């Protein structure tokens, strides 16, 4: 188990290094650079700025410096935001995104498992039909539509009751998080519901569930100990990529609900070719996701003993 964990971590480090290199090269092959624009009014100013940020050095040398700084944990200073360390940006805004993302994943996973199991149990009956219809909606409607609809619904509800039951936008308390997290997790929840339904249907008809019934176990024990744990395996497998989709896809929802998350800086940085922020956020997100995938793999091994041995 330890050897497996160590191997996975090593693979993760290589993945992150690859992400960093690819981003570095891609970023530099985009026409223009962060100091072109109104700031570099004359050639002299431009040259000075380039020298100040080290942009006049050959690409290879810049790369070595970047990687060296990464290894020291220093992501550098933002080009566009005066005197702001990339580390500070991440430290300040990532917890917001992460809280939102984790909440959304929790919603998605719990909802997906619950609805999926329910549809399988009520197969081809009314609850199944209704939930599967909603699932199609959840998968096909993009999150910004849900975000806008969610906000509209909140406005109307708050109006109706005359008090603010849940805030429409902003960040700070738990009540700020509920609706954005629901909206953010919606698509994944729908996807997981479908996955859970099919895997549950397969297991309901499996031989070992029949054995469990023949042992005379009560229905809830058969469900919890024999069906759920086995049915949940494929859901856990896609949880890693789902976390990836949710945390990186969060910026749209963050924008609509005016949540000061990292996603906004990530997108802004790409638009403004803010090299250090692009590199910092990408590498940070990358390592976060790689770590999550490893975590999910380890979790999978914990649930399914067959994985542990290999």
């Amino acid at each position, binding site marked *: 188990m330890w050897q497996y964990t160590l191997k996975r971590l090593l693979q993760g480090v290589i993945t992150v290094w690859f992400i960093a290199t690819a981003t570095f090269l891609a970023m530099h092959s985009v026409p223009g650079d962060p100091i072109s624009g109104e700031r570099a009014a004359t050639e002299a100013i431009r040259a000075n700025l380039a020298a100040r940020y080290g942009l006049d050095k050959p690409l290879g040398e810049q790369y070595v410096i970047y990687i060296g700084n990464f290894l020291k944990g220093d992501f550098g200073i933002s080009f566009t935001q005066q005197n702001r360390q990339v580390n500070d940006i991440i430290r300040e805004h990532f917890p917001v995104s992460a809280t939102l993302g984790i909440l959304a994943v929790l919603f998605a996973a719990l909802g997906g498992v619950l609805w999926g199991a329910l549809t399988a149990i009520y197969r081809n009956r009314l609850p199944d039909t209704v939930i599967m219809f909603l699932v199609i909606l959840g998968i096909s409607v993009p999150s910004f539509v849900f975000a806008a609809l969610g906000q509209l619904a909140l406005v109307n509800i708050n109006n109706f009751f005359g008090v603010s039951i849940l805030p429409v936008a902003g960040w700070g308390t738990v009540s700020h998080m509920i609706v954005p997290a629901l909206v953010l997790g919606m698509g994944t929840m729908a996807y997981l519901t479908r996955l859970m339904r099919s895997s549950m249907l397969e297991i309901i008809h499996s031989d*070992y569930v029949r*054995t*469990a019934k*023949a*042992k*005379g*176990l*009560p229905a809830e024990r058969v469900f919890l*100990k024999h069906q759920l744990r086995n049915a949940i395996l494929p859901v856990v497998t896609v949880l890693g990529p789902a976390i990836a989709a949710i945390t990186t896809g969060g910026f749209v929802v963050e924008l609509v609900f005016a949540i000061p998350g990292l996603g906004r800086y990530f997108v802004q940085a790409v638009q403004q070719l803010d090299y250090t922020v692009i590199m910092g956020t990408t590498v940070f997100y990358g390592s976060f996701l790689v770590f999550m995938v490893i975590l999910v793999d380890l979790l999978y091994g914990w649930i399914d003993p067959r994985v542990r041995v290999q």
Partner: protein
Amino acid sequence: MSAPLLEVQNLHVEFDTYGGTVQAVRGVDFKVEAGRTLAIVGESGCGKSVTVQAMMGLIPMPPGRIMKGSAKLRGVEILGRKTIEGREVRGAEIGMIFQDPMSSLNPTMTIGDQIAEPLIVHRGYSRSKAWARALELLKLVRIPEAEKRAKQYPFEFSGGMLQRAMIAMAISCKPTVLIADEPTTALDVTIQAQILDLLKDLQKETGMALILITHDLGVVARMADDVAVMYAGQVVESGSVDDVFYRSSHPYTLGLKLAMPNNDPGRHDTLQPIEGSPPDLFSPPLGCAYAARCPHSMKVCEARSPEQFDVAPKHYSRCWLHHAQSPHRAEGLYLGGGNE
């Protein structure tokens, strides 16, 4: 012999499918007595498994349906009931093992936990007490290094070991009846014999009744006291193992015997398959279901379903040949007058 421990009477089971309603079991009767082994024999799809699964409440309903009939354990009806006399029927009164041990155990639960589970649920044992008992049971079914094995998962066991574990699980609550649904079909021939011996030994120790479902006549000869031969959802011949084997009274039983390979050095018979295939149970034939394949078929066979004719005490056959007015009363049968 005293009143039967388990008695099934006139059991009818149907299934709704897209193609129509399948009458899988059409009036099955059998009795099992304590300490004895009943073998239910028949080809695939004749309703052997459906019969016992209906008894155990393991048939998904819908699409399945028990139309009529009864199954009584010590005189108490068990169809549609979960408990009798305060004891759970499934797992406590009647234990069951299945054909494919590889897929019949939960892959994410240790063997020990799976054996301990019925004890916790039915007997109210604590976890540690149930675990200790599970270890004893593993030793009872001759699994070496029980302590180590109990902590393993099904994928770490071989097929034969898994079937032993299944047996340990099924007998954990000391059932009065053990149903073994083709317990050796998925196993190697060498392992088959071991599993059958184990079942026989356990039966001797515990005095439980055994219902053995199989299509292997060799297994029947080795294990059974009584035999019920099933065809197209009905018991066509029933009796003691000697009666059914040496005084076979139904053409189907004879057909099965002739279709069985043997390696007697003196005999050079070719195998005689039973021509044709079983009838369509969407619309079962009016008369005898075997008439279309039967070499002795008469007019009456096509028109009317045969009743049970007693050919000897405790030995009956559902065949018109045994009727008093039958022109060639079964004389050809005992001589092995087979298919053409």
